């Protein structure tokens, strides 16, 4: 809704903001956006309300002076922030950088645009005017008759007029010394130049041209001594005839003028002043009329802008030039007359000589059956050219291709061209030596080399073969051959060739002893000679450095040790195939033999030890925990850890049963194994933790371990806990009913209880003798117990013990685990006295217990050995 509509509606009394007023009736399609949101640009605004903005969004035409351009900030001298006097800033430093202010610096962009536009016009007019001025100047020199233009003037004009735009070719020519007005080519003698001048014709009209010819006095003696540039060839500019005038009609010429009445031509048009600002586009206005230049009045009417020659409007220079030339020629022609006295039409010339009709010859008769054969022509051509080449040695006669084909070297070419030969390459060291030195070196060389006649001069060209002479190529100096025999062997990859090479060298080294190299069977003589040539070349190439120079160089070792390449398709022979097959079979057999015997055994069905591989495998501890299995504590294979208990629960059970202690079952049930395993696992757990601190070397703390590893703490723990739990045990024991024999009770019970405990703890086979000390101690304890309570059932007790130990162990072991296993050991001495103090009644047995550990260790070691 427009504001006006709103107002109107408001006037009527409609609530504009109500929903009804803004109800949308659009059912199909996208409704137009509400009018409030889109500014109605087409809405009528009175003139005084209209605002003008420039393309940059700045407001224009504002303020009280509406209608003018804004200046500054809203026509004030201030800025948006207000006006403030600028603080003084020294421009001294900036002075060097500052350019002198140009008017453009103070111009608006519009003005700059204007300037730019105008400058374009100025530029074109400048160019035009410059040329036009020249033209007018040149025209001023023209003889009123228009026939003879002063040649000097013409030349000057031509030379002074710079080419409006030098083409690249012109630039190059100028750099090469060419000047405007000269012809292109080498400078020539006066005689030839005069000849040229004599033969010069205007290509447009066919008339003899005198302009541009040498203007020399006949008696000038010096003239003959100079060379002259060739005559300039007038470029034939053929103007396209794009008008409908008749031939010879010159627009702008009056009838009389065209008829040749030169004198009748008067000044019929206004003379325009050449100068600044007058261009082709400008009409001949009153302002442009040359008011002052009356002196140079020509007979022609000059029109600044020829309406008919509309195409001339952009390049006035050419227009003028051609125009003038045309007029020149017209002027020339207009003087000629026919013999009968009638003047020749403008643009036409009267021939001096009668026209000779061209003679026409009939085509030669083509013989029947003839077919064009260009090849024959070419061959003839080639033959001709060869003949030409051989007959005439002139290089000018050679085409590029033939020249390329010719075998003339650069030097020969230079000689032909008369160039001074290039300075020769650096000379040999020997050239700088005095004769005496040379002799001395020769002597040294003679002593060193086997060949006394060897010369050290660089020109030992006897070995260097020249192609055409065969005898010299296949023949080697004996010393060279000998040297080559000692030197590098080039054909090591081809033994046959090498053998022939050596044979050749030997034959050359001692021609009298050995005959020349015999050709191979069915080897052609030319092949042989080629081979010998190769050998000679190789020998001269690879002969070792001779004499005194030999020690100064080391040859780079370039050995072609690559495999021998057989040319052509490889076709294996039958023998080869058989050999390869045999080899393959052998390999297969070998592989079969080498292959695992277990594969063999499996194929034979001999399953058993052959097919079985047993390797240690370390299950994850968590896995063992989840399976309820003791961590087997397998370490590196082959390592003997005295404290490692690798005995399985099964063995453990076996031992206990052997000892008559198997209380529950003979075979390993989960319960017993679990308990036993758990205990042993926990007793072993600290070991792992200890090993952590010992680094990579597991044997690092071995001796200390063996020394300090008593099972003391275990025993101690057992006893300590026993002491602590004594009361409970007693209470339990009292409740139990006893069915076992009491007689063997004390001894047997005590021993077995103890051994059982150790077994559970250590999982080791043992020698009962070794445990005697502990037995006594234990006995003492059990005796005490027995004193108090003699009615213990053996098995019950056994069970009880186990359980108790388990629980106690659990506490103890968890403690140990927390403390970090073997770290307990330093602490042991501390603990022990404490516990000792607690266990006052066992003082006597202590010493024996202390003695115990080494024995135990020894047992363990043995046990491990057995296990593994």
């Amino acid at each position, binding site marked *: 809704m427009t504001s006006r509509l709103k107002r109107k509606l408001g006037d009527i009394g409609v609530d504009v903001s109500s929903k009804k007023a803004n109800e949308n009736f659009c059912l199909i399609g996208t409704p137009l956006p509400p009018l409030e949101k889109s500014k109605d640009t087409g809405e009528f605004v009175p003139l005084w309300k209209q605002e003008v903005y420039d393309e940059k969004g700045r407001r224009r035409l504002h303020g009280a002076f509406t209608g003018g351009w804004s200046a500054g900030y809203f026509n004030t001298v201030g800025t948006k922030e207000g006006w403030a006097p600028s603080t003084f800033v020294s421009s001294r430093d900036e002075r060097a950088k500052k350019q002198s202010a140009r008017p453009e610096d103070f111009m608006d962009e519009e003005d700059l645009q204007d300037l730019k536009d105008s400058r374009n016009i100025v530029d074109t007019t400048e160019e035009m005017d410059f040329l036009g001025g020249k033209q007018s100047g040149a025209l001023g020199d023209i003889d009123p008759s228009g026939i003879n233009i002063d040649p000097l003037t013409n030349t000057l004009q031509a030379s002074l007029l710079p080419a409006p735009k030098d083409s690249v070719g012109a630039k190059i020519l100028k750099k090469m010394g060419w000047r405007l007005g000269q012809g292109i080519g080498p400078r020539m003698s006066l005689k030839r130049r005069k000849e040229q001048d004599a033969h010069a014709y205007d290509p447009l009209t066919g008339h003899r041209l005198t302009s541009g010819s040498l203007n020399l006095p006949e008696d000038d003696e010096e003239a003959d001594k100079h060379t002259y540039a060739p005559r300039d060839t007038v470029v034939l500019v053929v103007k396209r005839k794009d008008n409908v005038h008749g031939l010879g009609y010159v627009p702008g010429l009056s009838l009389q003028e065209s008829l040749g009445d030169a004198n009748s031509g008067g000044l019929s048009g206004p003379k325009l002043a050449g100068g600044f600002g007058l261009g082709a586009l400008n009409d001949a206005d009153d302002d442009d009329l040359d008011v002052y230049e009356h002196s140079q009045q020509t007979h022609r009417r000059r029109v600044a802008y020829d309406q008919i020659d509309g195409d001339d409007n952009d390049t006035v220079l050419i227009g003028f030039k051609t125009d003038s030339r045309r007029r020149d020629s017209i002027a020339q022609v207009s003087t000629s007359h026919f013999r009968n006295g009638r003047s020749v039409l403008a643009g036409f010339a009267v021939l001096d000589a009668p026209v000779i009709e061209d003679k026409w010859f009939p085509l030669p008769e083509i013989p029947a059956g003839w077919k064009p054969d260009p090849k024959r022509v070419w061959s003839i051509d080639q033959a001709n050219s060869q003949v030409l080449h051989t007959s005439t040695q002139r290089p000018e006669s050679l085409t590029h291709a033939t020249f390329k084909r010719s075998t003339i070297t650069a030097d020969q070419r230079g000689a032909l061209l008369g160039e001074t030969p290039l300075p020769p390459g650096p000379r040999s060291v020997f050239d700088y030596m005095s004769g005496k030195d040379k002799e001395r070196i020769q002597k040294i060389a003679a002593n060193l080399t086997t060949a006394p006649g060897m010369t050290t001069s660089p020109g030992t060209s006897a070995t260097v073969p020249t192609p055409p002479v065969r005898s010299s190529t296949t023949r080697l100096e004996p010393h060279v051959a000998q040297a080559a025999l000692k030197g590098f062997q080039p054909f090591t990859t081809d033994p046959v060739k090498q053998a022939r090479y050596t044979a050749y060298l030997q034959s050359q080294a001692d021609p009298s002893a050995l005959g020349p190299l015999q050709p191979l069977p069915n080897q052609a003589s030319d092949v042989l000679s080629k081979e010998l040539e190769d050998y000679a070349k190789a020998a001269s190439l690879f002969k070792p450095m001779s004499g005194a120079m030999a020690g100064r160089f080391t040859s780079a070792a370039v050995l072609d040790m690559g495999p021998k390449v057989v040319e052509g398709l490889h076709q294996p022979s039958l023998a080869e195939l058989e050999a390869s097959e045999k080899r393959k079979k052998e390999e297969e057999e070998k592989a079969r033999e080498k292959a695992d015997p277990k*594969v063999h055994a*499996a194929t034979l069905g001999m399953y058993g030890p052959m*097919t079985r591989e047993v*390797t240690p495998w370390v*299950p994850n501890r968590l*896995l063992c925990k989840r*399976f309820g*299995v003791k961590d*087997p504590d397998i370490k590196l294979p082959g390592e003997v850890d005295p404290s490692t208990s690798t005995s399985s629960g099964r063995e453990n059970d076996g031992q206990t049963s052997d000892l008559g202690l198997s209380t529950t079952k003979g075979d390993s049930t989960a319960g017993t194994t679990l308990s036993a395993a758990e205990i042993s696992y926990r007793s072993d757990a600290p070991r792992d933790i200890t090993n952590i601190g010992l680094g990579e070397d597991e044997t690092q703390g071995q001796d200390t371990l063996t020394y300090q590893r008593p099972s003391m703490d275990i025993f101690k723990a057992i006893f300590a806990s026993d002491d602590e739990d004594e009361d409970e045990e007693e209470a339990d024991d009292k409740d139990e009913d006893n069915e076992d024999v009491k007689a063997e009770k004390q001894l047997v019970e005590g021993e077995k209880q103890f051994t059982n405990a150790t077994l559970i703890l250590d999982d080791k086979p043992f020698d009962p003798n070794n445990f005697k000390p502990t037995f006594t101690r234990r006995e003492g304890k059990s005796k005490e117990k027995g004193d108090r309570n003699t009615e213990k059932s053996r098995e019950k007790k056994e069970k009880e013990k186990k359980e108790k130990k388990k629980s106690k162990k659990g506490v103890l072991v968890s403690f140990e685990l927390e403390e970090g296993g073997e770290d307990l050991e330093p602490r042991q001495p501390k603990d022990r006295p404490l516990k000792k103090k607690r266990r006052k009644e066992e003082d006597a047995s202590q010493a024996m217990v202390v003695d115990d550990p080494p024995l135990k260790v020894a047992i363990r070691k043995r046990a491990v050995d057995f296990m593994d």
Partner: protein
Amino acid sequence: MAPSRGPQPLPRTLHVVLENHKGPVNVARYSKGTSKYILTGGQDRTVKLWNANLGTEIKTFAAHGYEVLSVTISQDNAKFASSGGDRSVFLWDVATGATTRRIPGHMLKIHVVEFNEDASIVASGSYDSTVRLWDLRSQNRQAIQVLEEARDAIQTLHIGPTFIITGSVDGHVRTYDLRMGELRSDFIGHPVTSILPTQDAQTLLVASLDNHIRLIDASNGKMLNDFTGHSNDSYRCRACFGHGEATVICGDEKGQMWAWDLLDASILQPNPPPKIHNKLITWTEHHPTESGEVITASADGTVKVWRHPVLGE
């Protein structure tokens, strides 16, 4: 039935057909306990729970994006694990029918998955030739241990109380003994597709892709018996023991169910056995407790429950 002389004959009377799977059934396993139910996993990416007696489908467990290749059931029947082309082990809650956990980690499809006794560990053997042992008690995402000894795909797996036996396509049966801390690898020479130890874990029933089923002495790796006659050289056909471990049962690739005497390896009558499935029998399982019930899962999309003919019918 006459008092048994020698091994009991194989139940060969079709009791019920379970045929809701679209496509081959790869695995069929009895539930634990009384084993009234059967879990089957098929190529149709579902695991189905059946009542073996009535032959009704109880539930469909659909979460797999690829075929189901293996199913294992926990001892309490509360959950089961399945695996297949998803490269993840799926743990399911039987009651809700939703996956409780998905264990990624394998690079390729998992051929076999197995719980240990208390379902605290699940082992998965994969085509990527590894067996990964996952702890289900902790939320650890990493496998407890990876058994990488196999040189080829693991096809079968068994977890005993203290050992893990794997059968691989590289022709080895590997026994990882946790207690001994050693790995005993027995070379069979042909891809091993099925392993089942006897109850006393003294012998192993090993089926390999050379039409042989071998009874291997677990202690020294010697072959005690060799059961042949069936054709099994390209598919995994699971062999099992009959009741009381007196017989060996295996379905073959021709759809026949073979039975051998365990001791003398003679094929039980009828010989040759009738064709009971249109396609190969992928899985044969004897009822763990009942004497006369065998289920066979086949590539023809059916699982069949076989029983002895009930007298008086």
